[in-house]
């Protein structure tokens, strides 16, 4: 993932991964802090949005052995 779109803003994920969360907030003073924190967390794998999460395949029930 190179770009992350949140609201009207497209974030550079490579850069977000190279800085701390606080550095990202400080470097983007004109942006809403909550959005920058969200973007940093998502870029660094600390937060996974439901719609981005990989859907797990439903577990199949194993048939008990020697079932009669």
């Amino acid at each position: 993932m190179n770009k992350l779109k949140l609201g009207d803003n497209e974030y550079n994920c490579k850069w977000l991964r190279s800085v701390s969360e606080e550095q990202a907030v400080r470097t983007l003073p004109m942006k809403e802090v909550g959005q920058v924190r969200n973007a940093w967390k998502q870029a660094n794998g600390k937060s996974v949005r439901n719609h981005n999460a990989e859907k797990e395949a439903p577990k199949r029930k194993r048939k008990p052995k020697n079932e009669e």
Partner: protein
Amino acid sequence: MATNICSCASPMFPNGGDPRCLIEMATIAFIVIVPTLDDTGAVNSIDVSSPTVGQDIKDRILATIPVNSRLYPQPRVENATFDRTDTEYETLPSGNKAKTGAGGVRTFAWSLWKKQSSNMYLRELEKLGCTDVSFFIIDQNGNWWGIKDELTSNLLRGYKMDVETFDAYREYALDNTRQKIMVSFDLDKYECESNSYVITKDELGYDATTLRGNLSGYQTLTALLSTELQSVVFTGNGTANDRDDIEGLVLADFTVYNVTTDSAIVASGVVETVPGSYTITIPAQTASDVIRVSISASGYDVADSTVAAL
């Protein structure tokens, strides 16, 4: 030039009258380097007939002037020497002798110390040698010296440097000495030193020793968002892990340009988030367009940098 005849013009023989007033060149304070030719191939020179000659010179030091027309004041020098090789003669068996034209090469040499002996400045000096350059001499009295090729000319050009001879190296500190940078080069062998003319500090309107050169600056550019760029601006000084930041720049110092579409981008804001790190707000550009940021801050010559738009 010391072994050739500089002029055979009329009046033909050396008249020995005294000038009404003599302005002697005092000890050299520093030199101002100038590329010998500008971008058009014309000799870089100063129009001494300009009523604002002093300001003209100051304006030509600014980093906004094209590199090949700019004046580059250098740091103050110490212990300058001006050795000259002997004039060479051919002597025939009869004892008759005549000048051959060889010899008479003038070598300028000096040292730089204290703040002027930085490694950063040595790296700057190592840039010399690629292009033909000339130099004006600023003496300790604050006067500006150059060469006027014709008496009727209003153009003062620099002394031609033989750039192939330019050398600069570090002198290490000893128990009883400080570190220094040693500099030497030859004057072009065919330069006519007797054509030296001065612009006095009165004519300049200021003491020329007050002129200072720019500091080289560099920037790293990152696209943080589609609408935000980060420019980290620094000089070549500082410690190994603590760069010397260029602080205090403002919006007017930055010029943003879309190289792909060949159009200017109007930045709407610049914030210095930490010393030397600037976040620039721009309108979103087409992804992957090449964006260039130029910086023109007084006292600095900062290299342009480019980045791909997000």
